[in-house]
C-alpha cells in the first residue's frame, strides 16, 4: 500500500506545485493558502476573491443564460506543511445556465494542516450545473478537512455533484452537504473515497425534497483499507408532492478497516416516495472470481474492482 501511495504522490505533487505556482493558465481561480495566484474571468462570470488572514473569501456570480462548454476550474490548496486554511465561498448561478465546475483541493506537503470550507450555492431556475471536486491530501495523513456545503437548487434546475478522493492518504475528512431541491429540481449527488492506513472519513449527505416533483439520488461509494474508518450518514427528507428520492450506498471493507452506513428516510407528504439500498462489507466473491477466471491474481482483481467502483 505505502509503495503505491508514494508512486502516485510524486506525479500529483509535481502537478499540484505547478498549478499552485500559477504555471498553468486555467479558466477560473487558483488560490495558494490565502494568496490569489490567478483569476481568469470569462464573459458572464464575475469572480471576486478577497484574502482573509488564514484563507480567502470568494464570490462567484454567473449571469443568466451563460452556457459554457469548457470547465470552470477552481484550485484551492497550500504548499506549506502546517497551518489552517479557511475558504468561504459563495456561488450564485443565474437562470438558464449550463455550466461545469471542476475543483481541486491539493495539499501535497501537508504534515499538520487543516482545510476548513463553508460553501453556499444557489443554482438558478432551469440551470444545469455539474460540479466535480477532487482532493489530494499528500502521503502523511496530516490533513484535516472540514467542509460544509449548502446548495439550493431552484425551480426546474439540475445539479450533479461529485466529490472524490481516490489517491494518496486522506487523513481526516468530514464532509457535510445539504442540498435543497425546489419545484421540479433534480439532484444527483455522488461521494467517492478510498481510505487507507488510519484515515477517518465522516460523510453526512442530506437532501431536502422541498418542491413539488423534485427528485434526488444520493450515491456513496467507499473503499476502506488497512485500519481506516468510514462513516456515512445519508438523509433524505421529502416534503414536496410527488417528490422522489433514492439513497444508494456501497461500502467495501478490506483488511482491518471499519465502515458504517446510516440511511435515514423521512416522508412528510403522502404522495412522495423515497427508497434506499446499501451494501457494506467485502468485495463480491463472484466479481472477484469472474476476473480471476481471466487470469488475474486476487490482488489484481481487487484493484480492478476498486478502480471500477471509484471511477
Amino acid at each position, binding site marked *: 500500500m505505502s509503495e503505491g501511495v508514494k508512486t502516485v504522490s510524486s506525479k500529483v505533487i509535481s502537478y499540484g506545485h505547478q498549478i499552485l505556482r500559477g504555471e498553468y493558465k486555467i479558466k477560473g481561480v487558483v488560490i495558494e493558502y490565502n494568496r490569489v495566484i490567478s483569476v481568469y474571468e470569462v464573459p458572464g462570470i464575475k469572480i471576486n476573491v478577497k484574502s482573509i488572514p488564514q484563507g480567502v473569501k470568494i464570490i462567484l456570480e454567473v449571469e443568466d443564460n451563460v452556457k459554457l462548454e469548457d470547465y470552470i476550474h477552481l484550485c484551492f490548496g497550500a504548499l506549506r506543511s502546517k497551518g489552517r486554511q479557511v475558504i468561504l465561498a459563495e456561488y450564485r448561478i443565474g437562470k438558464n445556465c449550463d455550466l461545469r465546475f471542476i475543483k481541486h483541493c491539493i495539499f501535497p506537503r501537508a504534515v499538520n494542516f487543516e482545510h476548513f470550507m463553508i460553501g453556499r450555492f444557489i443554482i438558478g431556475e432551469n440551470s444545469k450545473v455539474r460540479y466535480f471536486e477532487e482532493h489530494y491530501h499528500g502521503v502523511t495523513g496530516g490533513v484535516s478537512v472540514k467542509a460544509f456545503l449548502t446548495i439550493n437548487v431552484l425551480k426546474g434546475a439540475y445539479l450533479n455533484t461529485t466529490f472524490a478522493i481516490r489517491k494518496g492518504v486522506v487523513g481526516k475528512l468530514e464532509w457535510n452537504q445539504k442540498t435543497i431541491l425546489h419545484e421540479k429540481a433534480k439532484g444527483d449527488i455522488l461521494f467517492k473515497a478510498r481510505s487507507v492506513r488510519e484515515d477517518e472519513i465522516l460523510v453526512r449527505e442530506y437532501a431536502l425534497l422541498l418542491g413539488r416533483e423534485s427528485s434526488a439520488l444520493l450515491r456513496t461509494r467507499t473503499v476502506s483499507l488497512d485500519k481506516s474508518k468510514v462513516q456515512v450518514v445519508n438523509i433524505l427528507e421529502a416534503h414536496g408532492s410527488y417528490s422522489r428520492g433514492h439513497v444508494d450506498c456501497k461500502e467495501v471493507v478490506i483488511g482491518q478497516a471499519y465502515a458504517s452506513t446510516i440511511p435515514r428516510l423521512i416522508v412528510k407528504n403522502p404522495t412522495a416516495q423515497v427508497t434506499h439500498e446499501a451494501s457494506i462489507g467485502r468485495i463480491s466473491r463472484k*466479481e472477484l472470481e*469472474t*476476473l*480471476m*477466471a*481471466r*487470469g488475474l*491474481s*486476487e490482488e489484481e482483481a481487487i484493484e480492478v474492482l476498486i478502480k*471500477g467502483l471509484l471511477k
Partner: protein
Amino acid sequence: MQLLVARNINLVRNGVKILSDCNLTVEEGTIHAIIGVNGSGKTSLAYVIMGCYRPTSGEIYFNGKNITNLSITERAKLGITLAWQEPARIEGLTVLDYLRISLKGSSESEIYEILNKLNMPPEVYLTRELQYLSGGERKRVELASVYLMKPKLAILDEPDSGIDMLTLSEIFKVIEEMRENGSTILLITHNENMLKVADIASVMCEGRILRTGDPTEIARFFKERCRTCPKGLKR
C-alpha cells in the same frame, strides 16, 4: 487425447450433496455438451472444474496434471476459463475495460472483430458499462471475453439463456470458431437444441453423469426420459 478428467467428484455444500461420484472425461478439440434439468449439478461441476468450489473428495486432471488444489487464477493460467451463466454486473467497468483483461498482449482489433461477430457494434458497446447492459448483452460480452482468452478449455455455462433466436446462430458460429482455433469447449445447457453444435454429449442427473454418447442420441434420451422424470419435474 484426454484434456480434462474429473474423477469421483463429490461436493457437499451446506449439508446438501450436490455432486455424487461424478466422473467426466473431455477429449481435446471437441465440443462436449452436458445437459441436465435445473438442479442436476451442471453449474456446480463447472465451478469445481474452474476452482470456484473445492470438491469434498475426488480429483481433477488437466492435460495430465492434477489441478484439484490449484486456485482459479492458476487454472486460468493453465488455459481454463469460464463464461458465467449470470455474468457479474461489475460497477464502473466498460465493455472495453473488461475485454482488455482477456487480451493479454493481443491486438485490440480482435475486440472489434468478436463484438461484430456477436452483433454488438463496437462503436455502440465499447464505452458502455457492464452494469447497464441487459442480461442478453452481458452474456454475449462474457462469450467475447472467453473467446479473446484463446483458452485450451472454455466452459460455457448456458450461453444460450436470455439470447434471442437470431443471435443464437451467431453464438453457435462463435463456439464453432473457438473449436477451430484450438479450444476445447465444455458446453453446459438444459436445452437439447444446443446439442446440435456438440461432438459428444453427457446427461447429468442428481449430481452425476448418467450417460455419455452421440449428441442426437443424448438429446432423444434427455427429451424422453429426463423431461418426464418425476425427480426432474420435482425440481
